[in-house]
């Protein structure tokens, strides 16, 4: 339904664009019915836009406003809609408005290194520890994890738990595989797995590097009917919401190599006095609280039938 309304809206806009190009812009007189449809569609479009927007600028009447918290994070937290879900609650609970820029882990950490943001929420443990060790971050706190899965056509690889078997078969049979190749957390994870299995994927001529985000890489895998390592959240969301439904199945899940730990780090105020450390600490404390951890654990169950993230704050992950 939603898609059809959007389609009608698109058609209307195109038609108006042409008409107004022709002469004058007196399009005030319109069929009331059409107007209603257009209004509905606009509302819906606005909703979608908000959800897809990388920055959340919502305000609320309740609670006192303390200011804005700038966060650099990975595409997966934004793409899965988790942040859209959490931001209003954060505003209500603490009075801070959460703004974020969703980029690759590499760039997110770079933004932290440059003092452009107050806090980073990423998933590349080694890089995060280095970030703290170099004095850019105060301390790393684990927040949650999700798991990676290998998706692709169900032939010739049969679904299994054994990542070694899957990756070996891809290499041996030179099956098409699309890698992110963008040095993001997911990309690093994939490279780590190849390395841990002592396999060299570059020997496969059908091993491609998309250099793009998870969503674009998934659609490319779908187009090429290739295998791909992805986080479960983005896969589930795209499987459900994409206009052209992904024709990719899960061929590997559950291997211990496939876990993906998220950490949150406040940017060091000693290095960059202008960062809002108070807000960053408020966020860290808030996201690690039992109440929010519980919310994270429930997110996605209703919509996708399974949780997208597993909270694990307070552990040493």
């Amino acid at each position: 339904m939603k898609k059809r309304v959007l389609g009608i809206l698109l058609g209307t806009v195109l038609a108006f664009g042409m008409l107004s190009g022709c002469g004058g812009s007196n399009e005030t007189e319109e069929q009331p019915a059409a107007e209603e449809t257009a209004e509905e569609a606009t509302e819906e479009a606005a909703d979608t836009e908000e959800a897809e927007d990388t920055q959340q600028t919502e305000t609320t009447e309740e609670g006192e406003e303390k200011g804005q918290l700038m966060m650099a994070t990975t595409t997966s937290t934004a793409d899965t809609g988790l942040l859209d879900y959490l931001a209003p609650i954060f505003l209500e609970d603490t009075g801070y408005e959460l703004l974020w820029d969703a980029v690759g882990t590499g760039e997110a950490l770079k933004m932290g290194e440059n003092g452009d943001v107050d806090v980073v929420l990423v998933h590349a443990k080694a890089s995060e520890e280095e970030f703290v060790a170099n004095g850019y971050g105060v301390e790393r706190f684990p927040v949650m994890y999700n798991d990676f899965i290998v998706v692709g056509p169900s032939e010739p690889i049969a679904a299994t738990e054994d990542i070694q078997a899957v990756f070996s078969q891809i290499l041996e049979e030179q099956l098409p595989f699309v890698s992110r190749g963008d040095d993001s957390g997911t990309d690093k994870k994939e490279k780590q797995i190849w390395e841990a299995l002592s396999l060299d994927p570059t020997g496969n001529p059908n091993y491609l590097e998309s250099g793009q985000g998870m969503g674009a890489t998934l659609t490319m895998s779908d187009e090429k009917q290739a295998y791909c390592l992805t986080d479960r959240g983005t896969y589930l969301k795209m499987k459900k919401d994409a206009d052209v439904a992904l024709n990719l199945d899960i061929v590997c899940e559950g291997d211990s190599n496939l876990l993906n730990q998220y950490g949150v780090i406040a940017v060091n105020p000693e290095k960059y006095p202008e960062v809002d450390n108070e807000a960053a600490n408020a966020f860290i404390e808030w996201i690690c609280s039992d109440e929010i951890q519980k919310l994270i654990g429930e997110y996605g169950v209703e919509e996708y039938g399974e949780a997208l993230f597993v909270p694990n704050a307070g552990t040493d992950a």
Partner: protein
Amino acid sequence: MLKTIINEIFSDVGVYDAIRVTFQMALTSTFISTVLGIISGLALERFSFPGKRLVIRINRTLMGVPPVVVGLIVYMLTMRRGPLGSLELLFTVKGMILAQTIIITPIICGMVYTYGNKTAPEVRTFAKTMGAGRLQTNLLILKEMKHEIYFAIVSGFGRSISEVGAVMLVGGNIKGHTRTMTTAISLLKSQGIFTEGLTLGVLLLIMAFLLQCLADFFRKESKEYENY
């Protein structure tokens, strides 16, 4: 040799191939667009037909069409389940050339039409007084507009070489295959490697500059009659 040097300088994002793909794509699409744009631009100037004003307006609108929209349309046409899916153009240089041609042709067509409107009627009248045939007349129009056409081509090429949205969508930024200099810059930026991205950007500008110099060199001979 050159490949090793270039790949040494930059991070492992396949810069050498990106340069090759960029120029292969930009030159091919500019060439196709030039042929299509000149023919359609001159035809638009020459013939009147019902709805011509609308066509011209649409053409002007398309001159400023966001490349990413064209990219999306071409993507949807060429994807596996799209109407042109069987041609297997998605994530290939051919697909990128198709998208680029759609972006550039209206620019060249619009510019040729505008210049042609100013020049062609006069040239046509002149050609008639000289007893020139139809082919000779059209060749003369092209010759008399050569500087304007050259400018249109340069504009189209500039647009093509600098474009990132459509080639990212249609090409897919696949390393070694469809990665261009601009999408490589975008990738480097996403990895937080800003200086290399900037260096590649400067390299892109230098190469465009050199290409212009080369084109000017071939144009020089005719230029001495241009001091009006």
